[in-house]
């Protein structure tokens, strides 16, 4: 505050542009200025509660100066602390100004002492924590845990609502599409042939083809395909000599009659 502190001009020389603060010197392996202070305080060999902050500040500053004489590069943290301690020291030595907004030198010293005690305390518990029986170092878990066998049971979820909706929708869609895409039903030649072969077995006399086919033509839509296929099959069987066929005039009924001799073979169905 009052006079220029001896370290202020030092600070700018400290390299920090590299963005590599880790490269700065760790003074004798101390972890920061607070750690160094704590070590110095311990050397006072008194209870930390009764430590002299003034003496501590002097020791710290002396230490830093010694380090500087040895041309050790000091981390900025140490220099800042040294500056602050020098300031604190001057405040402690000078008569206390009337109570202002700033904390008094005494209060600053107490706060520093408290910080040191707190660091000491946490060091203590850290040590205790590390001394416990640690898993994987002192105590061990089951080396070969037995795996839990997972039985997966798929439970399917569906509601009646979903079921009915699925049914109703598809039925409706299906019906509507059936109307537009009517499937053509065809009485195939094979169907006709099979039916005729059965017919041949039961016949002994002329019969109109239509009479026999009537049962296949219940649906009016089937009529053309049944007639066409039956006629084709009839002609085929005539060619094979299994049937005789006659038609009295154009558009008149077609008559069929099995050929006498091979009747027995035709009877097989």
């Amino acid at each position, binding site marked *: 505050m009052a006079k220029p502190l001896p370290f202020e001009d030092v600070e700018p020389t400290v390299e920090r542009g590299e963005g590599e603060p880790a490269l700065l010197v760790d003074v004798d392996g101390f972890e920061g200025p607070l750690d160094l202070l704590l070590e110095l305080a311990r050397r006072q060999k008194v209870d930390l509660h009764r430590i002299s902050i003034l003496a501590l500040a002097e020791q710290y500053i002396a230490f830093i100066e010694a380090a500087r004489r040895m041309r050790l590069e000091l981390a900025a943290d140490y220099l800042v602390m040294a500056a602050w301690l020098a300031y604190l020291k001057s405040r402690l030595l000078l008569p206390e100004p009337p109570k202002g907004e700033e904390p008094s030198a005494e209060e600053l010293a107490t706060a520093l002492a408290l910080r040191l005690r707190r660091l000491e305390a946490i060091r203590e518990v850290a040590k205790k924590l590390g001394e416990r029986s640690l898993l994987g170092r002192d105590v*061990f*878990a*089951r*080396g*070969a845990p*037995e*795996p*839990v*066998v*997972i*039985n*997966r*049971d*798929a*439970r*399917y*979820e*569906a*509601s*009646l609502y*979903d*079921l*009915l*909706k*699925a*049914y*109703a*929708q*598809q*039925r*409706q869609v*299906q*019906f*509507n*599409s059936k*109307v537009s895409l009517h499937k053509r039903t065809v009485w195939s030649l094979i169907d006709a042939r099979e039916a005729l072969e059965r017919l041949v077995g039961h016949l002994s006399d002329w019969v109109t083809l239509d009479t026999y086919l009537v049962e296949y033509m219940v649906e009016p839509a089937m009529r053309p395909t049944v007639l066409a296929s039956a006629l084709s099959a009839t002609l085929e069987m005539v060619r094979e000599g299994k049937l005789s066929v006659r038609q009295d005039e154009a558009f008149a009924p077609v008559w069929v009659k099995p050929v006498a001799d091979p009747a027995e073979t035709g009877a097989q169905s």
Partner: protein
Amino acid sequence: MMDETEVQEAEAPEETLAESHVPDHGEAMRIAEALLFASAEPLGTEELAGRLPEGANIEQILEDLQELYAPRGVNLVRVAGKWAFRTASDLSFVLARDVVEQRKLSRAAMETLSIIAYHQPVTRAEIEEIRGVATSKGTLDLLMETGWIRLRGRRKVPGRPVTYGTTPGFLDHFGLDAIEDLPGLEELKGAGFIEGRVPSDMSVPVPSDAEALREDEDPLDQDDLFQEPLDMHKTEMGETGEE
């Protein structure tokens, strides 16, 4: 509680296996126990012996440990000539965990299921005819897995296709008292499931899941029962649930 303590104290000292033989037999047992417990692999007799106090009777230790743990939930067992702690074999069930996975049926599965429900007994070809698309084997397998459908029999037509029907489990899941409770066409319309123009020739069958086979059904072949053991099992489970 209070008076009990006195009785307890008068009890004879416990005679454990650990305290016999050489002075530190008990300690050697403890060490062997810890080693066997912590090891990722079964330990051989020599491996153990190398870690036990000088002069420990390894055979005796293992024998005593085996005896000590025999009635417990964890046993000392010999595997491939080495030693390891293992969960007692009669308790293997406790290490099995059943995970229930909720799965939603696909639309295809849902449609197929609904057709089976309404049109049973129904063959795959008939389902396809109604749906207008091929039904994958996977869909039917999956439905079998749900336990809601079952193989009923075989239709007495060329090819003898399998007929499908629903199970009591189906009724159970969908909260139906009987399959006849499935709503008919009028009810479906009334409930808004069918909207707009209803084709005049559209009808909804009255379903039946009766146990007895229909006239046009043959019983399943013996092979059918073995072809799908898992599914049949589930289906049977569903059926026994009915009783």
